[in-house]
């Protein structure tokens, strides 16, 4: 009798791992497909308007122009900042700065805009300072200046964070050898830094470009007017104000072609590497670089200091101006803020949970599948939202279900759904590593011991996934909390979410109320992350309680 017969573990059939992921990825593809189809069917007059309308040409040109400038600006700032941070591993406050740089991943764009307005705007801190000195601000925040500033505010830290990570992954021995040879800054760049950064740059540039190309909240708040309108904003205006579905569909197709083409170029050359920061960090501080001494020490500190100010000032402005307003208004039960908070949570909580659920099922399915078409589809479907911008997807769905939009709450459901899809690239990034962390031998042991199905999830996967899942959930919820693009399309101005309310307040120059709302949104997001990081701490408490063994490994008598 060779086999030891025992009932199979619950849910151990392969289909339990396969089916949910395949269903979800099928639904995503269907949703995207039908959205795009609805768009294409709508462009009845053909693309002729594209080369006949100077307005459309202007919009497309401006979109590409500002995105290009934003990429250049972000990368040109990120490279020296990243190198300065790598040169100074012992810099006091370095980890706090790295945290601050990650903030741009979760800070809603519209919140950042209100912070930037509070610092650089007409009534902002700098204007006050300039007036005190007897002058006036040499710039106007509204227009290309503000758009570029906001885009760099978001993308320079993101790019610098990825670059720091990339530079820290240079093998320790290479770094030690360079240190021993006493290579100077230029040689280090040629020998270590550039070869490490080169493979990351195309993907990073493409990411920043498409983020800026499809940027909505920033442009709709700081831009506007025919001279500073991007495709996304033009789509939004065509749909909401001019009811020109043909033009919206046309613009959406152009945007899709450009973004899709860009990502296709990057992926085709297989030159993409991790373009989103992960949780790892290098502990090697043992190889000082020859270019970290002398006068560079001072320039590095100045550079890092300026960059910190650049990132911290808007957040500080929100906090310092927002908290007093909030404190004064907290007791007001009829404040628009409360209703907006409830609506935001009603959209964001389901979106976050759905995003995490879809992510886990997609990962489970790709784990079981052998390389081939279904597996590629399952793994690509989670990244599609990066290529198909939410407003394009939203436009398609808007056209599909537009007759039924009158039904109460229907729009919010769609917003929640699209938001969860938008979060997928981020939640996938967080969970993919931990999900696939088990090595071959661990998996073999688990197979041999029959730890499959529910048991594998319960004993082997969940304990390792608890913390990353909470983090992914945090990302999912906050991305949706901060969404302004999709909600602008489907929401009603009379019933705003927090970002909509903030936008309305910024638009009517209620600066105090706007910073208050921005501050409140940041407080909620911080609370969500603090709340979600709690379950992760529990396991640390257990070992101390019941080991019954001293630290030397000698059992107690």
């Amino acid at each position, binding site marked *: 009798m060779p*086999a030891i017969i025992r009932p199979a573990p619950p849910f151990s059939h392969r289909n339990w791992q396969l089916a949910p992921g395949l269903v979800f990825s099928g639904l995503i593809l269907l949703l995207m497909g039908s959205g795009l189809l609805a768009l294409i069917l709508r462009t009845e007059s053909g693309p002729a308007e594209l080369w006949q309308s100077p307005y459309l040409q202007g919009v497309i040109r401006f979109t590409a122009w500002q995105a290009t400038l934003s990429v250049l600006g972000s990368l040109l700032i990120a490279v020296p900042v990243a190198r300065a941070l790598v040169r100074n591993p012992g810099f006091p406050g370095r980890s706090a700065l790295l945290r601050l740089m990650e903030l741009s991943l979760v800070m809603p764009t519209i919140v950042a805009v209100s912070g930037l307005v509070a610092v650089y705007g007409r009534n902002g801190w700098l204007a006050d300072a300039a007036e005190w000195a007897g002058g006036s601000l040499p710039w106007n925040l509204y227009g290309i200046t503000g758009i570029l500033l906001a885009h760099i505010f978001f993308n320079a830290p993101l790019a610098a964070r990825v670059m720091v990570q990339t530079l820290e992954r240079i093998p320790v021995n290479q770094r030690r050898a360079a240190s021993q040879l006493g290579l100077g800054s230029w040689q280090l760049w040629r020998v270590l830094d550039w070869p490490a950064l080169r493979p990351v740059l195309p993907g990073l540039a493409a990411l920043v470009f498409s983020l800026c190309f499809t940027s909505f909240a920033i442009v709709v708040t700081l831009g506007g007017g025919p001279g500073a309108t991007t495709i996304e904003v033009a789509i939004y205006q065509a749909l909401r104000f001019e009811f020109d579905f043909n033009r919206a569909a046309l613009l959406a197709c152009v945007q899709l072609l450009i973004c899709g083409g860009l990502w296709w170029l990057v992926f085709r050359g297989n030159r993409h590497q991790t373009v989103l920061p992960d949780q790892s960090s290098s502990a090697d501080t043992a190889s000082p670089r020859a270019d970290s001494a002398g006068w560079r020490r001072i320039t590095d500190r100045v550079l890092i200091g300026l960059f910190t100010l650049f990132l911290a000032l808007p957040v500080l402005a929100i906090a310092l101006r927002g908290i007093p307003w909030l404190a004064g208004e907290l007791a007001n039960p009829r404040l628009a803020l409360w209703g907006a908070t409830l609506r935001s949570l009603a959209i964001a909580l389901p979106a976050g949970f759905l995003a995490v659920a879809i992510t886990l099922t997609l990962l489970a399915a790709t784990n079981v599948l052998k390389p081939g078409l279904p597996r590629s589809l399952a793994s690509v479907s989670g990244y599609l939202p990066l290529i198909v911008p939410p407003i394009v997807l939203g436009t398609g769905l808007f056209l599909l279900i537009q007759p039924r939009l009158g039904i109460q709450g229907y729009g919010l459901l769609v917003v929640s759904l699209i938001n969860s899809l938008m979060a997928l690239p981020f939640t996938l990034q967080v969970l993919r590593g931990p999900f696939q962390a088990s090595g071959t031998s661990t998996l073999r042991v688990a*197979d*041999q*011991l*029959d730890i499959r199905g529910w048991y594998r999830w319960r*004993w082997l996967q969940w304990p390792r996934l608890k913390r990353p899942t909470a983090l992914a959930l945090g990302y999912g919820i906050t991305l949706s909390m901060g969404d302004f693009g999709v909600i602008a399309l489907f929401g009603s101005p009379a019933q705003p979410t927090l970002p909509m309310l903030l936008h309305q307040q910024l638009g009517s120059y209620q600066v105090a109320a706007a910073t208050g709302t921005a501050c409140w949104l940041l407080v909620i997001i911080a609370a969500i992350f603090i709340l979600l990081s709690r379950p992760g701490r529990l396991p640390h408490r257990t070992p101390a309680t019941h080991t019954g*063994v001293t630290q030397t490994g000698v059992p107690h008598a």
Partner: protein
Amino acid sequence: MLEIDDLLFRYPGQPAETTGWRFKVSIQEGECVALTGPSGCGKSTLLNLVAGFLTPAGGDIRWQGQSLGPLPPWERPVTTVFQEQNLFDHLTVAENIGLGLHPGLGLSKTQWSQIKAALEGVNLGGFGNRKAENLSGGQRQRVAVVRALLRPQPILLLDEPMTGLDDENRAILQGQLQQARHQGKTLVLVSHDSRDRQALADREVTDFYHAW
């Protein structure tokens, strides 16, 4: 008897003209056989084939006359002890062993105390509630063998289980494996260290692999 009968294997993804293996060996029940040969001759590959981690291209594996070929790893009458990574780091020692008795840790009180007693037998009394990640390499291997011995599976596949351990741990492990033989388990040992082979093996087999 464990019969490896003209078992054919080639690692996937390699060109067809690469030489693969043809394995042939018979092992009596209750015997301890050491597979020896130069590195790369296919010792570990054979153990992984017997365990069902790799799929052969042809031939058969039989235990007591019945083919193991169609069985997945979890239904085969074998327990493998690898050189390392036998334990799940985030779980306690007792949980690691318990998972070998029931894959969902649905254990009776008797079984838990059985685990406790077995740990005391290898000088690891009181280690049950420790996380596996806090153990030394030798302690981890002892736990892995405790788990293998508590499982009812009659065949032990030992893939360099004592490599890299100090003499004290080696002695304890050898004692454990002797105990396994007294229980009537069949042992297939792969070890590059001749001391282990001499201490444990009834015979050494060198002609188990052929080119295919």
